């Protein structure tokens, strides 16, 4: 187990380095940088740019140095927890991102929870009642969930929630709570607003998880040990929960890794539509205005989260499933 753990951690390091190189390349690909766009914008509106300040910032963040030095500078900062400086907000990235990260985290976490809670019973039911009408209906519903663009679902749900339930449009809380310290009322308001983005973001993930769980459980249900247990007269429910379900659960755990990028992706677009104060709209703006430290550091942070997520799910899987643990040990 320990060797597996060490092996797994060692793999993460080159992965993260590669990711950081890719991100740095991407944010540096567009011609020009934030400052050149900024100066051009100011000049076109006839204002004088504060060239001294810009020159200072450029020197401060090493824009005059070769790219590889800029990269090392950026990564070095990241290692110290310094995510750079957002030029558009005139604030360190940490401060820009801070509050939004918490909300992003809340939304993502609730979505994953929602996915599990919904997918689990439906998947089990579909598998145990294969080809029944409910199964067909649920399958169709799942496919529909996969096929509907989330942003439109968000709009429609938002509209109906407003018309029938009187929930304020946009945002993650009622307007009077914005920029207020956390209180019980604020938390309640967030909870009332949270369900729409959670449903919208979670739909696609839930649908695919239902399908996977159903397929896995169906495979298990046909195996001989199930037939034996049934022949011996074990109670159907006990049989289901004690053996095949435990086998079919692996994807539930290994999916945390692949679910996380999905949730973050979904959250990015849905929050743009619903103008949630999460990180999606910020990233979009940052990409558009070439606010490279904000965009880059934030992308890096999301990738980091995902890598950690995969790592955690791998560990959990190894703990739960001795086959994986032992195989990985043998491979070395």
């Amino acid at each position, binding site marked *: 187990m320990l060797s597996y753990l060490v092996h797994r951690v060692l793999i993460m390091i080159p992965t993260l380095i590669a990711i950081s190189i890719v991100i740095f390349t991407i944010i540096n690909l567009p011609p020009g940088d934030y400052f050149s766009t900024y100066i051009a914008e100011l000049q076109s509106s006839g204002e004088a740019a504060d060239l001294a300040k810009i020159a200072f910032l450029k020197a401060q963040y090493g824009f005059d140095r070769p790219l590889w030095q800029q990269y090392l500078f950026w990564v070095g900062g990241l290692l110290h927890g310094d995510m750079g400086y957002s030029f558009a907000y005139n604030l360190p990235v940490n401060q820009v991102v801070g509050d939004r990260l918490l909300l992003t985290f809340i939304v993502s976490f609730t979505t994953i929870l929602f996915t599990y809670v919904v997918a689990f019973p439906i998947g089990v039911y579909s598998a145990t009642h294969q080809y029944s009408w409910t199964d067909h209906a649920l399958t169709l519903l799942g496919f529909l969930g996969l096929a509907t663009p989330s942003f439109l679902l968000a*709009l429609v749900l938002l509209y109906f929630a407003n018309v029938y339930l009187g929930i304020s449009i946009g945002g993650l809380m009622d307007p009077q709570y914005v920029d207020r310290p956390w209180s019980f009322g604020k938390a309640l308001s967030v909870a009332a607003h949270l369900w729409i983005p959670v449903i919208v973001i979670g739909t696609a993930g839930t649908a695919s998880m239902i399908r996977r769980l159903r397929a896995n459980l169906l495979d298990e249900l046909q195996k001989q040990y199930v037939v034996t247990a049934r022949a011996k007269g074990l109670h159907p429910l006990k049989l289901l929960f004690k053996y095949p379900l435990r086998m079919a659960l692996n994807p539930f755990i290994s999916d945390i890794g692949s679910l996380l990028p999905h949730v973050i*992706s979904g959250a*990015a677009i849905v929050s743009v539509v619903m103008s949630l104060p999460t990180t999606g709209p910020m990233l979009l703006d940052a990409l558009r205005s070439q606010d490279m430290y904000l965009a880059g550091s934030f992308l890096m942070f999301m990738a980091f989260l995902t890598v950690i997520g995969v790592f955690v799910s791998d560990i959990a899987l190894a703990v739960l499933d001795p086959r994986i643990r032992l195989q990985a040990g043998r491979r070395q």
Partner: protein
Amino acid sequence: MTDLLFAGDSPRDRADVSSAKPADPLPHYISDSPFDPYSVESMTPAQERFYLASEWRMVWWKLRRHRIAVLSGAVLLTLYVSILFCEFLAPYELDARNTDFIYAPPQRVRIFDNGRLVWPFVYGYDYRLDMNNLERLYTPNPDKRQPIRFFCHSSKYRFWGLFEGDLHLLCPTPGGQLFLAGTDRLGRDLLSRIIYGARISLTIGLLGVAVSFTLGVLIGGIAGYYGGWTDILVQRGIEVIQSFPHLPLWMALSAILPVSWSPILVYIGITLILGMIEWTHLARAVRSKLLALREEDFCTAAVLMGARPARIIGRHLLPSFMSHLIASATLMIPGMILGETALSFLGLGLRPPMTSWGVLLNEAQNINVVALYPWLMLPVAFVIVTVLAFNFFGDGLRDAADPYH
């Protein structure tokens, strides 16, 4: 053996045998009828058709039994054939503006008039501007009966930008209107725009998959065949790409595309971006299959005969699971269509004058649309149908891909 002993069971032979006395040894007998050692294995033509069917034929047989998949396939075929004839199918041209009919709701096709079945027609609109809340009000006017014409000559277009034409499947009555899906903020007929948008939306998925397919087979093939360091390197690379949230990565990449690019370049760029990320799943599948298959005897035989790796992979290894690859590629298309829709919706993908379903949905970006002009969301119905059809078809194909099962 049985054939040899009893083959000559003719009356003459039997007479010979019965005339001999019981004690006498039987005369040495050789049948002169033609001998076919494979006669037991011979099959009727019907059996032959079944047992000797090629793999693809069996895939087709199995797929045919999957009713939903066949239906979805038919829907897809219709959609893809229709993009060849957009100009003919659309009642209006892509950019034809009807400035008197801005945000006009869809017209209902009526076939009953006073309880009698008649030629399909629509009611023309009476327009009034509500000065209190500046709302455009369109009321169908039963006095303005406008029969729909079929296979008719109306506005001119250039078919594929090459030939002049003016034949349409549906056209409005001369002087009348035909907005079966309503109009947008510039008074453009939405149905026509959806039909034209299909050209972009549907091809972008196909081209994207073509890119992923090539990359996936190439990279996965190399990793699986050579193994060792190449394999480890490719595996890590795939892990890196997969650990990115797709949409932000797509957003970042498409933000790179210069604004000055022509629409066609942007289209190609978006296709490449969509294709560049999705290949990893295919590459993984190809790799794991190849790792197992390269140990097979037929592969060793090919190596011994001096075949080069490219030929072994392409000619001997890939065909043995090509049907699986195609099935998984089919299942990748819906993701790309949705990806394009999302990107264009955010304004990072295709931009007008390019018209795709995502670009059309870009107009449905705020909540007013849901409240006031819900028909602007209609393109999403086409997105859903297409994606559903691809999913069902791909599922059926995946089940059929292993016909020996």
